[in-house]
């Protein structure tokens, strides 16, 4: 190359670098995302409950990628993921349903689907999104691609309209949910298309407050607030026969005040038993996963909110309701003894394990941070700052029934 030409090409290279720097400095979330192909299997979102925003994070690098704003009232929010793990569907308290693009760090679609909402689910084939609503009470089902309304299932019973809770997906394009006011469980079957066949099971117990479905999609378990015990429905059975379990527990004892309702989630299976938070009692209950008999109790620090099993089932991490919500306790499922206890900070709201359980991510609302712990040594591995964080949801949930 002649000297002037070399100089020219050098200049061009410098110029190109400058341009690239200027462009990248002015990039928004979407453009920055396009810098190279990447997977989403280790991504997740953190709900920022007070500001109506979510953080998209990379759990391998333990860092925040984007803040996505404009999701409305997220003071009680949850999320499910598309089968390709690219999109998170976030259910807000105000009835907003927002489809967040994890790669672009932006809102792909958003609809206001009700006045007051409590959570949702995605069908096993990934095509339907169901949202559970308090106002108007019932479940609404949407096309996962467009968020267009597919079906509306008002929870009308003899007493009027009921709030719905404990909405989960079940195999075969079904959704299962319960009616807080009516004490019923309904199964909406979309196997035949967009018109559901709804099966109603009455008399499951007073005021079911939340429910879970086991990872194999067989057992739906609803916790009862209005009476002691829980109700199990074996979805393999025909005809379906709801069965009351643990109805003897706490009999005759005065309940302690419940300053926050416990949550039931499909993570509760720990080995061959379930760990379930008691209601109005500072205990975690252990239930045999085959017989559904109570096999023991562990006294804990306060009213448990989440009792989340590490994916291998050996440990269960528990957080608590106000005013004991600064503490985490870890219970060994073998001995049912507490093996660790510490205070991550004020208002510990949620615990999310990485899919194979090497780390646990813990949101500390009033500490404005998510703390990351080694799930075996409990050593702190990292921290992500977040505004009043609540739920933490990893994209790997896409491949778990009931999550």
């Amino acid at each position: 190359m002649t000297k002037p030409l070399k100089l020219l090409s050098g200049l061009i290279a410098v110029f190109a670098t400058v341009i690239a720097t200027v462009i990248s400095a002015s990039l928004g979330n979407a453009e920055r995302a396009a810098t190279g192909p990447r997977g989403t299997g280790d991504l997740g979102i953190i709900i920022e409950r007070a500001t109506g925003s979510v953080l998209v994070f990379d759990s391998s690098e333990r860092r925040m990628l984007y803040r996505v704003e404009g999701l409305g009232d997220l003071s009680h929010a949850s999320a499910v993921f598309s089968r390709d793990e690219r999109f998170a569907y976030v259910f807000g308290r105000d009835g907003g349903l927002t489809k967040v693009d994890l790669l672009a760090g932006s809102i792909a679609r958003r609809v206001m689907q009700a006045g007051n909402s409590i959570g949702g689910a995605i069908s096993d084939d990934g095509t339907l999104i169901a949202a559970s609503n308090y106002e108007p009470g019932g479940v609404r089902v949407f096309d996962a691609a467009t968020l267009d309304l597919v079906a509306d299932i008002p929870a009308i019973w003899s007493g009027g309209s009921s709030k719905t809770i404990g909405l989960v997906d079940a195999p075969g394009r079904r959704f299962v949910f319960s009616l807080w006011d009516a004490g019923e469980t309904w199964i909406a079957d979309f196997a035949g298309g967009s018109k559901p066949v709804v099966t109603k099971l009455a008399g499951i117990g007073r005021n079911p407050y939340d429910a879970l479905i086991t990872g194999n999609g067989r057992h739906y378990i609803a916790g009862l607030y209005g009476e002691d015990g829980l109700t199990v429905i074996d979805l393999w059975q025909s005809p379906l026969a709801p069965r009351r379990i643990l109805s003897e527990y706490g009999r005759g004892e005065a309940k302690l005040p419940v300053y926050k309702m416990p949550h039931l989630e499909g993570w509760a299976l720990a080995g061959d038993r379930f760990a379930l938070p008691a209601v109005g009692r500072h205990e975690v209950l252990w239930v045999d996963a085959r017989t559904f008999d109570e096999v023991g109790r562990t006294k804990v620090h306060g009213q448990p909110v989440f009792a989340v099993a590490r994916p291998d089932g050996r440990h269960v991490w528990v957080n608590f309701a106000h005013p004991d919500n600064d503490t985490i306790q870890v219970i060994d499922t073998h001995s049912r003894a507490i093996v660790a206890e510490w205070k991550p900070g004020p208002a510990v709201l949620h615990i999310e394990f990485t899919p194979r359980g090497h780390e646990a991510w813990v949101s500390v609302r009033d500490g404005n941070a998510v703390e990351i712990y080694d799930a075996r040594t409990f050593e702190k591995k990292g921290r992500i700052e977040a505004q009043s964080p609540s739920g933490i949801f990893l994209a790997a949930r896409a491949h778990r029934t009931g999550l």
Partner: protein
Amino acid sequence: MPSPIRWMNAALSAAFAMSMAAGAAAEPVSERRAAELERLVRHDCGSCHGMTLKGGLGPDITARRLAGSEPSALASIILDGVPEKPMPPWRPLLSEAEALWIADYLLKDASP
């Protein structure tokens, strides 16, 4: 002064004295504690009533919905809960002055 009016005046001044007394009872709530109580209402009462207080599993407790309620009646619900309902008694965690402060806070239009 005709006696009905005098009676009304007396009633009014008694009511005024009572409201002053209620104000006095709420006085022990320091500015710092008030900030904590506001956070408690938004976030912890908010677990059932929603952070904007428009309701969730628990009812709407916005000022619009509560309008006309007596602060003392609300304070007693806060302190003693509602039997047969999930509303728990907050007496183990809150003083009467603090419950009254919350009642007043709810009755003011503090939304969203």
